[in-house]
């Protein structure tokens, strides 16, 4: 789908390596006060951050607000970023935490069963198909958000944030095998949650 944001993990390995070096330069430039570099960082990453947040909250306006909040936090936290993970991975962690904080805020809880029709790009299939797909997607999203914390982060980071298993393992300070086990467990749980909903 043309409008689906691209994620770093879906790029060829060589590109990632090249980009890794670029990122370090970018980071150094930002740290030395280069505003242009900071803007370039935004350009490179904001659509992916927005996409991952949209997948979490299914609300375009809210995702935009959370994206803005994510970057505000990122600028404040930039001095503490050690550069050991990719910039996007680091940004995704901030975005995810921002989303969690948002749904935990009193009186601003996002409905998990929100079945509003999200904005769909031009050229989408028929309205009925879209509604049906959206209903299913909303059910799936609600099921994912009902997973235990560690499983939820793993699933959303991998599928909605586009992070590679290795990257998630680095973030969580566990092995890639453990991440795969988590994913397996999450699928089993998701299946039972979805079956529960149907019955």
């Amino acid at each position: 789908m043309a409008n689906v944001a691209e994620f770093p993990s879906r790029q060829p390995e060589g590109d990632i390596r090249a980009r890794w070096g670029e990122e370090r330069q970018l980071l150094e430039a930002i740290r030395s006060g280069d505003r242009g570099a900071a803007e370039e960082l935004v350009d490179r990453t904001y659509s992916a951050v927005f996409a991952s947040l949209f997948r979490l909250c299914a609300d375009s306006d809210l995702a935009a607000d959370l994206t803005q909040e994510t970057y505000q936090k990122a600028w404040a936290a930039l001095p503490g970023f050690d550069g050991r993970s990719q910039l996007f991975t680091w940004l995704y962690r901030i975005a995810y935490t921002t989303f969690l904080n948002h749904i935990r805020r009193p009186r601003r809880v996002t409905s998990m069963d929100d079945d509003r029709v999200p904005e769909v790009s031009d050229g989408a299939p028929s309205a009925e198909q879209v509604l049906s797909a959206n209903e299913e997607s909303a059910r799936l999203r609600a099921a994912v958000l009902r997973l235990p914390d560690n499983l939820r982060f793993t699933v959303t980071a991998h599928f909605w944030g586009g992070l590679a298993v290795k990257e998630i393992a680095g973030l969580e300070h566990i092995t890639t095998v453990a991440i795969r086990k988590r994913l397996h467990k999450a699928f089993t749980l998701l299946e039972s949650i979805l079956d529960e909903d149907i019955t």
Partner: protein
Amino acid sequence: MNQNRKADLQRKLSMTSVPKPPAGLSERLKADIPKNLMSVERNRTRFSRSATFSLGIAASIIVVISSAYIALQVLSHSDTKIASAPPSMVSRRAAPASPQAEVTITLAENKKDLDKGQVSEVSKVVRRDENEEAFADARKKIAKSNSVVALESPKEKTEPASAVAAGAVAVGGAAAPVPATAEAPAPMLTRQAEDQVADRAAARPEAATMNVGRIAGTVVPPNELFGLSVDPLAFDRVRREIEQGERPAARSVDTSALINYFSQRDTAGRRGVQLDVEASRAPLAPENTALVRFTIETPRGAPAVFATGADLAITLNSTAVITHRLLGADELKSQSALLTNVSVTGLMDVKLRPAISPGTTIATLTLRYRALSDDRTHSITRVVHASDVERNWDSASRRHRLATLGAVWSESLTGTASPDDLARTAEKLATEEPDDLRARELAAAASASSRLRSSGPTGSGR
């Protein structure tokens, strides 16, 4: 889960459609970039320097503490040779005085089956060979180390008449003198219990040797005395949670520390170690429930070790007491070193048998310590009678009422006591003496916590 279903789920998760970011989002984000990114970096550098400095200080402290610890270990090792007394050397307190050295240890026999006519805690005296030379050597070394340490001297133990004279009953104003000589056995100590303790001590010679032979090089923990928490910040923590509209979690309520917070009195100018004991009916509790309060205070003065080897033994009369419970702690512990300017209060909840005569002894509390000033063991004994316990809570001292009400409030937070009428009683206590800050704080906290939604018992506090 079959592979098809898994693949289907993976596909659905991966194929979630995403709209384009709203127009202008990029500009909004760029506008949020701090104007001076350099300042962020400068802050980072400053923070880094500050962290390095803090780490340096922390490392220095660790080195100093480690050195002190190693020095004490070396000294302890030399003293272990002194403590190689065979189990047969364990003797009773009533044994005649001998020129050999004595060190007192407490064997906490925390027995709950008082119905069987046994005592709850018994103090025993363990005798060991004198090795004056080695001990004096150890003392010199410790003095050189300039650390706060407690030494249990192997010198012959004597109980001066001045210390004995301090053993007057202070409960409920009934000042009947009580002989508290070292030779006299504890009043409620039964022969059977004595035998049991002696047998156990003999069966565990290594344990006795370990306690006796060690030079107790203990820096007094600031937040715990005699095994009772005196953490001064405990009340603030609970208050903060209540002010935020939350019912404090049971594990965050430190009953012992709250008792100590509310029982603090300004007793400036006191001389010598004091053991203040008071008893009354428990506030807002069934008729046969009483609370016995004991407060140990050391003299005012420059911070220094005042006494060593302090030990409080509480002996309960099984013919009068059905059950007992130390509030906010599991058991009392010996205090290897007592500093000046300390005050610690404990409360014991006792359920009494019905229709006991007023003269019946309920409990005997004996505090023993070795004063550094005269290097002698002193003991203070207080006896609580049934008549003291019968006393109405309203007629108890202000300190006692604040401490006990604080305890009841604390227990109401942990779900083990009912908050009914607590707020009103606390308010009444505060109104009696408007200048009493602690009473006002208790009234405000009790009132606020009584308004919190009840979340049911969450477990017992400490």
